[in-house]
């Protein structure tokens, strides 16, 4: 049996209906999904991250319900060294 598709696996244009821009990169995803599912693809503890959809911060408590739609601009950020 084939393993399940990684949520961010780029699939063929015939199958995909959803293109979102993640951190500036146009990315095709299997379907519209919640922020929570989208974040499952990132191997960083969720409390190290913040998410923005269309320039609005998504609060942590809304990850399970906030849907990412076709054409959305998503930013996933963390903290890095800086002055």
């Amino acid at each position: 049996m084939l393993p399940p598709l990684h949520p961010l696996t780029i699939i063929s244009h015939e199958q995909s209906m959803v293109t979102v821009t993640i951190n500036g990169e146009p990315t095709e995803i299997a379907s519209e999904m919640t922020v929570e599912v989208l974040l499952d693809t990132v191997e960083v503890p969720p409390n190290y991250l913040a998410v923005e959809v269309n320039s609005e911060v998504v609060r942590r408590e809304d990850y399970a319900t906030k849907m990412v739609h076709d054409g959305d601009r998503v930013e996933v950020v963390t903290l890095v060294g800086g002055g």
Partner: protein
Amino acid sequence: MAIVEPAVDDTEQPDAGLRIGTHTLSSRLIVGTGRYDTMEQMRDSLDASGADCVTVAVRRERLYERGGKNILDFIDPKRYVLLPNTAGCYTSEDAIRAANLGREILSSLGNPGEDWVKLEVLGDSRTLLPNPAETIVACEKLAADGFQVLCYTSDCPVTAKRLKEVGATSVMPAGSPIGSGQGLLNTNNLRIILEYLKEDDPDFPVIIDAGVGTASDVSEAFELGGDAVLLNTAIAHARDPILMARAMKHAALAGRNAYLAGRIPKRLYGTASSPTEGVISTRPYGSDA
């Protein structure tokens, strides 16, 4: 080389902690976490600096590069107040977005810095000097939205005054361009800023931010009356960052102590330290005037 440890702790803070908004810091040195060769070197340098507040930047997570180290694995959020910055933003809109993202991360860490932001809105990528108009707009909006804004600005007294008026919790004039190591270029302007912002409000915190090259720059900032100094590159790019971090800690203490102690006025002529009576010598050159 053997180093004789002092019998008493000479790094004791000279005065009560520095109050910035609703927070109190015990060290008056705030250090950045960027530009270190390794995370371990950064961690040890922060420790050596004695700082209890460190700045961090908000950046895109590298979604497709697994297993990278995260800075939060090397900074204990229980030990340090994290001060997220808006570095690299060139518009008030982007700076406000970065501030909100930083707040979201810090709130999940339970860090007291969550309502803090070091606001930085740049106007020019070569000098890294701030855009005053955009900085004022962003400062006013963030303050209205409940942020305690520690606001990076140039050494212009007019801009500094305006930032305080629109709600900055602290104004942070630059000594010289970020990362330039030129020290404090216009101490007259810094003195005017200190006078303006502390007039009728002596506890308003003014933090000298950016441009520090070495320890004497830090001492000078405190001797002028600055409440704190924020620096990064001078430690991170020193040949020995951990040793330089120690030097900066001592420079901050020296400068602050000297400021509190009060310097003597400068005089054109010398005044003898030893008694003038009972000298066994005569004055051969007739200089009795």
